[in-house]
């Protein structure tokens, strides 16, 4: 039998992947961040209508390390980061794996503006030049990258105005079908300031309470990162979790118990911001690979 070539042929990308992970770690450690490791298997995830966790015994595999990491922040840790596996049921496509690698970082006494600067600096650190080419498209990385509010994006690119969007699912459908395809492909872009319903763990914007301070990073049309100024009001957080959970139950989805310890300890968290960055998609961009399958050793179908 000859060696498995479908595995062998990815070797160059896998080598590059290892170097990128090393550089990401160096970027954060040099800035004084602590690398943390929190459990992958947890009693409960943050309830979200559109994210389904994979059960593991009577617990779940994490859909994000956010709850544990924010408990560390609340306990007094300042700047922390983690590179870990996350699992989301039934997400599989050219840009989706049900098990994937996430980078999350959190800063105390900061808001989402700082996270955007972090993203710009992280890419500069990883790329080392002003342009990147992905699938024949040149991407200009000159900073600052444009910041576009969701309201502006709807005004420019959608047939529906933001105020007329009836519910969360219709919102996300307009984002995927009308907004995302129109976003500039030749420059990274931050989409910011989401309606409150679209940011379950994000803090309301100071001068616009109908919005939350949430940011999504897009590069070449790929959704790469999602972050926010953290909501630290336990009462409001409980109300939003209960709303998501109620919607889940009404649609017959698996119930998701509330993360009580998180809600208790949130009281001791003051100002903070955090962001989740999809590492596999970042590596697709940096290694000029067309699909997520090309940047991991094994796709689920190869197991």
């Amino acid at each position, binding site marked *: 039998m*000859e060696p498995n070539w479908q595995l062998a042929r990815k070797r160059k990308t896998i080598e590059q992947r290892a170097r990128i992970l090393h550089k990401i770690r160096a970027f954060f450690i040099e800035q004084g961040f602590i690398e943390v490791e929190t459990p992958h298997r947890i009693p409960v995830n943050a309830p979200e209508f559109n994210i389904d966790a994979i059960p593991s015994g009577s617990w779940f595999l994490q859909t994000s390390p956010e709850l544990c990491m924010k408990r560390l922040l609340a306990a007094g840790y300042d700047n922390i980061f983690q590179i870990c596996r996350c699992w989301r049921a039934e997400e599989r*496509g050219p840009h989706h794996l049900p098990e994937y690698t996430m980078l999350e970082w959190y800063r105390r006494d900061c808001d989402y503006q700082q996270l955007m600067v972090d993203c710009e600096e992280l890419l500069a650190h990883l790329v080392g030049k002003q342009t990147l080419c992905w699938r024949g498209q040149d991407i200009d990385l000159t900073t600052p990258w444009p910041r576009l509010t969701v309201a502006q994006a709807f005004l420019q690119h959608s047939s529906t105005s933001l105020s007329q969007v009836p519910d969360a699912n219709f919102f996300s459908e307009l984002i995927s079908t009308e907004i995302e395809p129109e976003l500039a492909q030749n420059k990274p872009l931050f989409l910011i300031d989401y309606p409150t319903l679209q940011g379950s763990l994000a803090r309301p914007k100071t001068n616009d309470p109908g919005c939350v301070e949430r940011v999504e990073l897009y590069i070449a049309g790929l959704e790469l990162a999602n972050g926010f100024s953290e909501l630290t009001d336990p009462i409001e957080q409980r109300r939003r979790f209960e709303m998501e959970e109620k919607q889940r139950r009404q649609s017959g989805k698996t119930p998701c118990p509330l993360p009580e310890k998180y809600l208790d300890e949130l009281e001791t968290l003051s100002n903070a911001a955090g962001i989740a960055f999809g590492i596999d998609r970042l590596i697709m961009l940096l290694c000029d690979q067309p699909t997520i399958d090309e940047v991991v050793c094994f796709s689920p179908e190869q197991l």
Partner: protein
Amino acid sequence: MYSCSDLKKGLKLMIDGDPHVIVQYDFTKPGKGQALYKCKLRNMITGSLFDRTYRSGESFEPAHLEEREMQYLYQDDNGYVFMDKKSYEQITLIEETLGDDKYFLVDNMDVEILMHGDRGIGISLPNFVNLRVIQTDPWVKGDTAAGNNKPATVETGYILQVPSFVEEGTLIQIDTRTGDYATRVKE
């Protein structure tokens, strides 16, 4: 019944009473948003193509089609000719009906023909087929990296990526579900 997570290229569904096959499939989902399953479907009776987007929670009726085991004979001006090995009856399938499956037909190969009444409306291929490489760049001496690849054309005109050690004339095994190289075949 199928659910959205069963959708993939090649899956056959009943829609409005007609069998359809998914010819292109894409999954998109904003991190916090709902999943969209974008399909290009071909009506297997009329041949018409159209796009449809499905959402989580939808379900689909599988298309149960009568299958007849036949042997692939040859290609002529009208299309691809198959023969029932018992009755010697022959049928011709046009190129549009076969889609990419046409690249994986080897003379005298046994396949299942999907029937609609007397008409063949598709085929069901074995998971692996062996095809001979008719064109590829020579193996550069000293290129020992197992992961290196290059394009190769096989006898049906299909082009795929193969390891650098595969040479012209080599018989290779191809996975018909993905269209990817699997291994060389010992002769």
